[in-house]
Each structure stands twice: as C-alpha cells, then as structure tokens.
C-alpha cells in the first residue's frame, strides 16, 4: 500500500474519533436551554466528520484514479537523501523548545545556530561562532527593544 493510502487510513481514524466525539459524547453536557437551539456546538463538526470519513474512504479505496507520480522526493528511497541530518535538525528544534526557558534566549539560540550548521557539515568554527553570536544578539535586541516582547536572555542563576 502506498504512503498516501496509509495516511488516508490514519486520517480515517482521526475522522472517526472526531465523528464519535461529535455524534455521541459532545451533546451530553449541553444545557437544556441550548437544546432548543437549531444549532448545537456539535452540528458543524457532525457535518464535517461525515464528509471527512467519506473522503478518507475514497482515497483509501483508490476510487479516484490518478496517475502514480513520484514527488519531488521519492519517499520509497528515503535512505538516499540526507535523512539523518533532517532528523537531527528536528531533534535540535525540539531541544531548543525545551531549553529556551531554562537556559535563556542567548545561550539556546547561539547553541542552536552553531549546532545547526555543525549538523549540516560546517566545520569552519571561526565563521560559525561569530555569525551565530552576532545574529543572536541582533535578534534579541530587535525582539526585546523594537518589538517589545520580553524574552529571558540568560539562565535564571545568572540573573536573567
């Protein structure tokens, strides 16, 4: 089964769960006066869930014929691409999300930019470090002073 139909299967599951919530569980807590309304909070989701289930089935069963075409990246040969780099970068982004508060903006961002180029194969430290630090400070200044959004610059124990 091709990837698009696997995804359709997942989407079918999501639509069914959504539909179940809309049809069977949502109306339980509805206040009596709202039940006289022609429209309930669940009305629109009910319609959506029906359309979603039908469409997911159409894709899953392959009812709409189209020529099989290989996209920009052929997922069947994912190993041929730089998949490791992509996964590492995603991990780095998740790590950034977790470190932003505790480590402060400057350390996290500087490390993110340096490690990002490191993962992509850059080894010229004398370029990477100054560029990353300058960019970090400029962005911090812009966000903090120009846009006026507070971001903790340093970790808590350094008084940030």
């Amino acid at each position, binding site marked *: 089964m091709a*990837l*698009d139909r696997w*995804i359709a299967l997942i*989407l079918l599951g999501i*639509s069914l769960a*959504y539909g179940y*919530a809309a049809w069977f569980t949502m109306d339980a807590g509805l206040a009596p006066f709202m039940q006289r*309304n*022609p*429209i309930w*909070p*669940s*009305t*629109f*989701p009910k319609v*959506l*869930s029906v*359309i*979603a289930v039908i*469409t997911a089935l159409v*894709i899953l069963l392959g*009812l*709409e*014929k*189209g020529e099989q*075409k290989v*996209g*920009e*990246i052929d*997922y069947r040969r994912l190993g041929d*691409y*730089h*998949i490791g*780099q*992509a996964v590492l*970068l*995603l991990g780095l*982004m*998740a790590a*950034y*999300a*977790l470190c*932003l*508060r505790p480590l402060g903006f400057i350390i996290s*961002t500087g490390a*993110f*930019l340096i*490690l*990002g*180029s490191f993962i*992509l194969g*850059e080894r010229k430290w004398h370029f*990477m470090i100054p*560029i990353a630090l300058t*960019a970090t400070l400029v*962005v911090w200044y812009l*966000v903090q002073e120009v*846009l*006026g*959004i507070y971001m903790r610059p340093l970790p808590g124990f350094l008084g940030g």
Partner: protein
Amino acid sequence: MLEGLLIGLQTAFSIQNILMVIGGCLIGTFIGMLPGLGPMSIIAIMIPVAISLGDPSAALILLAGVYYGAIFGGSTSSILLNAPGVAGTVASSFDGYPMAKNGQAGKALTIAAIASFAGGTIGALLLMIFAPALSSVALLFHSAEYFALMVVGLSAIAAFAGTGQVAKAIMMTVLGLIMATVGEGALFNLPRFTMGIMDLQSGFGFITLAMAMFALPEALFLVLKPKIPKGDGSDDIKDLRISRAEAKSIAPVIGRQSVQGFFIGVLPGAGATIASFLGYAVERNIAPKHEQDEFGKGSIKGLAAPETANNAACTGSFVPLLTLGIPGSGTTAILLGALIALNVTPGPRLMIDEPQVFWAVIMSMFIGNLVLLILNLPLIPYIAKVLAVPRNFLIPFILFFTLMGAYIGQNNATELLILVGFGVCATALRFADYPLAPLLIGFILGRMLEDNFARSMQLYDGASFVWERPMTLGLLLIAVFLVVLPSYRARRARLRASGIADGD
C-alpha cells in the same frame, strides 16, 4: 472612489509605509531567489513582524511587498540558474534560462522586470475597478450566501488541484476545517475537542500552523535534497537594455497576459502558477509560425508572457480577499490570517469601515511595482550573490526564524513542540503528494464558515435556508459541480482511452 484614492495615497505615502514597501520588496526578492523557498514560507516568517507593527495598513503593505518581491526574486533565479524559487515562475525558466545561457542574462532580467511591472500595474488598475463593484454586490449577501460562497471557494480550490488529487485536496480542506473547530469558539463559549489539554483551549495557533505547513517542510526538503546552484550566476549580467523592436513585439503579449493573468488570479484555487503556464501556452499558440519555433530556446515573448501573467495573477488574487474576505490561495490565506490577528475583517465592509486599509494596499501595489523596477533591477547582480550563501548557514537560520515566529506569537514553549510535530506531519503529507495549502485555507476559513452557517441556521430555524434562498442553492450547486466535474472528466477520458465510445 476619488476620495478613496486620496485616502490611499495619503496613507501609502507616509514615510513608514514607503519604507515598508521598499523593505518588503527587498526582503521578498532576497529570499524568493533562494531555490526551494516559496512566497508562502517567506510571508509566514514575516507575519510575526507584520503583526507586531500593530497597524493593519502597514502590515498588509509590508506583506504584499514581500509577496511581489518573492515572485520577482523567484523569476530571477529561474532565469539565471534554471532553479525556480517559486512554482509561479517555473514557466519563466523555459525561455529565460536559454536567454541567459546565450549571454543575454541582462536583457532577460530587464524583460522580466518590465513584464512584471506591467502585469502588476495593470492588475492593480483592474483591481481598482473590479473590487469596489464586486464588494457592492457582496454587500447584498446574507450569511447564508456567505456560507455558500465559502463552500464554493473551498471546492474550487479542490477542483483546481489536478487529476487524481481532488479527493486529497478535499481531505486536506476538511482537515483544516476540523482543526479550526478545536478550542473555544466565540459562538458557544464552550471548549470543543480539547481533550482536556489546557494548551488547546485557545485552539491551534495560525502562525504556528502556517510555519509548520510551509516553511518547515520546505526547509526540510532543502536538507534532504540539497539544490546546489551551479555558480552564483552573477558574473555575466550586463547590457540590461532592450531594443525598440523588442519592446514593440512584447507589448501586445504584456497587454493580453495582464488581463488574462488577472482574471485567472481572481478565481479561487487558480493563482500565479496556473496563470503563468496558461499564459505561456496561449502566447505560443497564437504566435506566428517562425516565432513559435523560438519558444523554449530563448524567445522574449515566451519570457514576457509568464512573467506578466504571474504578477497580474498575484494582484488578482487580492480581489476575493479584499472584497469577500475569502482567500483563494495559500498566500492570501496567510494574509487573511494576519489581518484577522490585527482585528481587521476583510470583506465587503472593508471598503466602508476601513477605506484606508483597502486603498493604501492598492496604492502600495503601484509603489511596490515601481520599487521592483527601479530599485531591484540595478541591484540584481549584487542580490544574486545571495545565492552563493552556503546552505549550512542558511538552513539553521530559516529554522530559527520559524521557531521564533511561532514563539513570539504565543510566548509559549509548548507551541514550539507543536510546531515541530506538525512540521513532521506536513512533511509526510508532502511526501505522499497531499496539497497543504487547502489545509491552511480551510483552517482560516473554518471559524467564519461555521459562524455564517450557525447564523443562517438560527435565522431559518433549521437547514431550510439551503433550499429557500435561490442564490444559496445556486452557489451550493456550483460547489457540487466543481467537485464532481474533474472526476467525471477523468472518468470519461479513461473510458475513451480504453476504447469505449461515448454514450451519445
């Protein structure tokens, strides 16, 4: 109208807004030139900046400038490197790149710039004429018609998705609509589908979703499959002039394609890509025989046609956004999201309630096109050097800006994890050839669609508005027709191909 024009001029010609146009065009050109990054990613990245400006006119002017700049930059890399940065400029590389290879890179860039300028300017003139007319019609619409109109818009987007893609496009639209129902709506004051998670109480963030759908997958694609341009393409740009005879031969092309491109751009779901391919095909078919052979080998007409058409279509796509509040493309959907975040609701009332926004945007289109022509064209050889910026530095920065954009919008680190999660899902969807723009359009229209649906249900005490209002019924029938037509035609083509005669 004259009064509106004056208000627009007054707003657009403030120092701040002129700087916005220039800055937007430059940033757009700069990033649009990078192969693989489309206007949607750039605009998504720029939204937090635009929103924090606080002034809706300035924000829209900035984003519109970025949009043209990106299309212009995309055509530059199409011509110089045969590596289009933007889908709408793929057709420009058919003739632009051969011209550059023949040592006429300067001329090709000039033609592209003039064609873009003419397309954008004529498009803006047409917008000035048609938008007020359309919005005065739209003022007569009832919420039932609005509901139906949005359904038509969403189905048109699915219908234009191409063969074998209609179901996927519908699926993505519905998924967007489903995601829009998560959280606490204004209508019922009741959290829905939050699964008890506090972070979902206010729904998914629009900026986060836009970044996750466009910027992140595009950056990941660049990582997975590096597009390494050969050379920086900037060393042989000289002789930017074109001759009088050449100008004469492309003038009718530009005239035709600005009008055609504009109207294609107005259609929901069509947009710059279709306009440029269609423009190229039409001009090739109506050109005299000896010129037809030159198409694909460096014909100036073949370059002028898609360049004019894609810019006119970009302008045309503002018509449904500004008059009906219904975006027809991913880019205008993002613009709509930005406007909503700034408390401006585009739609027929926009011209009455906030004329300065409407007219300033139109005026800024003229300024933007002028900026691209007189400021960017001479700078192109220098901007082309950007293409030589190593991706090792570039990609971390793109990723960082997507993270920053999502963070600034919500000030919440969980949002960043949601961004990464959705980004991975979006990349998988792109692998499987699911279109992502319909998802975002559905997400942004979802709340309005439900509001209008609910209002009509309440007014008519049930779903009877569907058949009691002829216009609503008509629009909904059009929507059904749009969805069914492509599969019907594909079916007939298949039957014919297998040798079965038509029924009649």
